[in-house]
């Protein structure tokens, strides 16, 4: 409604283009896959009987319940990890806050299936911890048995979503809100529970919803832990089984997508109108306090324990990558550099491919996300919300479904000049990663755009800059921090994506690192090289994330310094 009616052609054109991209690369492929769910198995006629079968099958009901349970418990465990980390780093002056925040994000950049392998070595029934427990205390703890294992791995992998969103919400709370509560006699945990946490709620719910959704849809982890009675593995097993094209796999896909969309909507519904944090701007976040000696020790202890748990997959992976034989023992028998030598001599193309694919995907993501955010929030073109919905809905599409959809839709499309079907051209991997990670970028870019005052754009329009020039010279530069954050999130998570890419890799020379790790892990000769490749991938993405974190922090500090200087001058 901002500039309705005037000079909208560029907006229509851009919107049309974005819509086309989303239709061609999201709606049509997914539609083509899930359409099978509505077909009569023997005649191909339209029917809902398959859904009836789904609800009549006790195995599927059980799977549905298990998925629900695992997703909910993962949110609970992830919250137990994320809330203290977020609270301590945003609330108290901590030397290593940036480091902690980065370490907290590290789990996201490890493919969950890799994490599951490493966790199995440490927490498994005959993993290091249980072997020790058994030897010294005569009992074991079933950390990784059945659904427990899935919950543990998922919580450790996905808690950063809660950490990131909650930290952002906490950082946005005006200091005066907290001070006024203190002034009225509230303090300590009561203060946190009654004032701080409710204000941070929208961020928490957004993060929790994302965790719920990702866990609900996730395939790799249950598969690796050999847990079959959940929805996503059921769908995958049925879709990828030899010879059969049982419609139930597709029915489950539809149900996964529908339920994910429902939980997205629910989280939106719950937080609607409650985004208080952004109302009170300019207070510079909660006041950071210094801790006393004991408080400091206690806080560090809590954080160290959490970090130790959180970094278990990484520790396990490191041990695997340096170990020779690690079999039914607390630690590997001996250590070697051979795995790294092997990886450096044969696996570097995976790394190069990953940098290119994830980089390009993240680049297109922020371009698309910026366009969508701008169209939705700054133009009046009809139907603009559809772009937002579609872009966000991509988060609810399981990677396998997207991968199969691409194979079905694009295999007959011959790319001109390249002379290959689009489905087996490496670009399709970039496209899949782009669509899969678009929701992350969209979220970051939307938040960034909302923080840019409309007046800044109007001033440019008023001075004769057309809409495109305004976006180019004013909006994008001012969104840079958020765009960068979106780029990093998309890049880091795309770099370790497997579920869609594994369906689309059509030549090993085109394969990204997650696929490489998967292949290297698939050998009876040991997982050392795979683990070494995993360590390299984690390091690579970790360093990139840390640098951009520092970069964003720094530019924020500069701006803050500018403002303080100005205030001092004006006095």
């Amino acid at each position, binding site marked *: 409604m901002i500039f309705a009616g005037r000079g909208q052609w560029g907006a229509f054109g851009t919107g049309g283009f974005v819509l086309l991209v989303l239709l061609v690369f999201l709606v049509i492929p997914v539609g083509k896959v899930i359409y099978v769910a509505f077909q009569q198995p023997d005649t191909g006629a339209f029917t809902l009987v398959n859904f009836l079968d789904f609800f009549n099958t006790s195995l599927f009901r059980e799977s549905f319940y298990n998925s629900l349970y695992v997703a909910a418990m993962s949110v609970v465990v992830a919250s137990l990890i994320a809330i203290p980390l977020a609270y301590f780093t945003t609330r108290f002056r901590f030397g290593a806050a940036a480091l902690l925040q980065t370490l907290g994000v590290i789990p996201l950049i490890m493919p969950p299936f890799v994490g599951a392998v490493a966790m199995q070595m440490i927490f498994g029934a*005959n993993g290091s911890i249980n072997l020790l427990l058994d030897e010294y205390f005569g009992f074991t703890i079933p950390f990784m048995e059945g659904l427990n294992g899935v919950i543990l791995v998922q919580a450790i992998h996905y808690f950063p979503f809660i950490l990131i969103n909650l930290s952002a919400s906490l950082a946005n709370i005006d200091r005066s809100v907290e001070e006024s509560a203190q002034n009225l006699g509230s303090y300590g945990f009561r203060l946190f529970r009654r004032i701080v946490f409710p204000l941070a709620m929208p961020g928490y719910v957004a993060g929790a919803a994302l965790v719920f959704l990702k866990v609900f849809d996730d395939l790799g982890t249950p598969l690796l832990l050999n847990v*079959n009675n959940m929805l996503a593995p059921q769908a995958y097993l049925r879709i*990828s*089984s030899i010879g059969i094209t049982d419609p139930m796999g597709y029915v489950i896909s539809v149900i996964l997508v529908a339920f994910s969309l429902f939980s997205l909507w629910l989280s939106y519904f719950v937080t609607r109108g409650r985004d208080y944090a952004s109302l009170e701007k300019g207070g510079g976040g909660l006041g950071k306090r210094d801790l006393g000696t004991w408080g400091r020790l206690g806080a560090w202890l809590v954080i160290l324990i959490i970090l130790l748990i959180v970094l278990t997959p990484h520790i396990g992976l490191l041990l695997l990558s340096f170990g020779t034989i690690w079999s039914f023992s607390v630690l590997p028998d001996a250590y070697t550099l051979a795995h790294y030598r092997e990886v450096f001599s044969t696996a570097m193309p995976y790394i190069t491919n990953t*940098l*290119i694919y994830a*980089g390009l995907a993240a680049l297109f993501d922020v371009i698309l996300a910026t366009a969508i955010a701008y169209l939705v929030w700054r133009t009046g073109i009809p139907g603009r919300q559809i772009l937002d919905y579609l872009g966000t809905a991509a988060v609810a599409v399981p990677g396998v479904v997207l991968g199969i959809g691409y194979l079905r839709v694009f295999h007959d499309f011959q790319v001109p000049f390249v002379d290959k079907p689009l489905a087996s051209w490496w670009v399709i991997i970039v496209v899949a990663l782009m669509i899969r990670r678009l929701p992350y970028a969209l979220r970051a870019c939307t938040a960034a755009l909302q923080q840019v005052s409309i007046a800044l754009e109007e001033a440019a329009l008023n001075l004769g800059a057309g809409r495109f020039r305004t976006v180019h010279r004013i909006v994008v530069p001012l969104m840079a921090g958020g765009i960068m954050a979106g780029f990093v999130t998309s890049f880091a998570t795309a770099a370790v994506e497997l579920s869609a890419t594994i369906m689309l890799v059509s030549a090993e020379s085109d394969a990204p690192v997650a696929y490489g790790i998967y292949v*290297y892990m698939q050998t009876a000769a040991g997982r050392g090289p795979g683990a070494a490749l995993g360590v390299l991938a984690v390091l690579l993405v970790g360093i990139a994330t840390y640098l951009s974190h520092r970069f964003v922090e720094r530019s924020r500090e500069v701006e803050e310094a500018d403002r303080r200087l100005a205030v001092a001058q004006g006095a």
Partner: protein
Amino acid sequence: MSVRAMRWVALAALGLAQAWSPSLSAQEIGDKLVVVTSFPKDLTNVFKEAFEKKYPGMTVEMLKKKTTAGVKYIQETASNNTSDIFWASAPDAFEVLKGDGLLAKYEVKATGIPDKVGVFPINDPDGYYKGFAASGYGFMWNTRYLKAKKLPEPAEWEDLAKPVYFGHVGMSAPSRSGTTHLTVETVLQGLGWEDGWALWKRIGGNLKTVTERSFGVPSGVNSGDFGIGIVIDFFGFSSKASGYPVEFRYPSTTTLVPANIAIVANAPHPEAAAAFIEFVLSPEGQRLLLDPKIRRLPVRPEIYAEAPDLPNPFEGDIGASVAFDVKKSKARYNLVNSLFDVMITYRLDDLQAATKALQDAEAALAAKPNEEAAKLVARGWELVAALPIDEAKSLDPEFAGVFKKKRKKATDKVTGRQAEVEQEWDDFVRANYAEAKALAEQALAMVR
């Protein structure tokens, strides 16, 4: 500042993309070969390097998919095929592709390969796929694990059904792993439909886990997650060769089946594909199978002279006693998969509970015999072993058709939907397991 960095990243990404474009490599016939394979890189890399060395300028693309996904991939991409060769273990997978008309016939020029390994014909009688290595099925175990848990080494399938192994065995499901399917089918053919399934359910009751891929089994044994795994031989050999504390053994009911290779229909590089098959079957290629990380049984008998530690299937070292009927296997391929999943994979918890209860009751009975209780336990085992369908029905093409979606003709009739059938089976199996468990508890109470 931030803007500049953004631009830098963007430029760098674009620059890299231009500098490195995998699709720009030349594509003339003869310098490229695309192989879809389920084999691990330890095997494929060796052949790739040797082949590329033999034909300079040749680039071999090894596309790794597990067997089921590989079949799926070739089916999905058939309309615009880009793969030259399908290379995997399970003959069944080749049968499926052959049935869909997705394989090309090929006449092997190399000579000196026998017609049969054990009782199994090495090559497809119809000429579509060729055996290049033999594999037998058996079990591997982790010696440290068995020692720590004080378990005996198993020798026969029946051993795995013993109570002592409760919770110590791992295997994959036939629906996820072509090799496991062969194992299951081999036992079914060797012991018969009823007894075969009864054994599988006894073993199923002892399972710690059903892994998602066949590779999950050696991996679990190697790491010590479980002690004993039902695997294809080379997993055992190569794990041992890599230094893991594991052993492998063939039980007497096993079959040696060839691992296969075939040219995909409408292959883009048919000449290169043919050359690759000839290379794999040549003495030179066969010798590569002896690599410590591969350890598969060559199909050229003369090679065994160079590897005295490998069992020689052509001299009867392995008791390949079962005449494997490929036609039978193919006819009920999906049905067996589905039946195994319904009875064992997805009901593992129920099956374990019933098995545990029956084993406990048996143990108590051994100490304090009680005829009536023994009857209850026997009845319980019967219930566990009970099957929802008999062998005749399993081979009924009309019934098996429920498990296929693609109908050849519109007139092909199908009764019922897979989901319906599976739900019926599930109800049957669950009720039986629950009743068996109740009987066992009843028996145990009588003995106490």
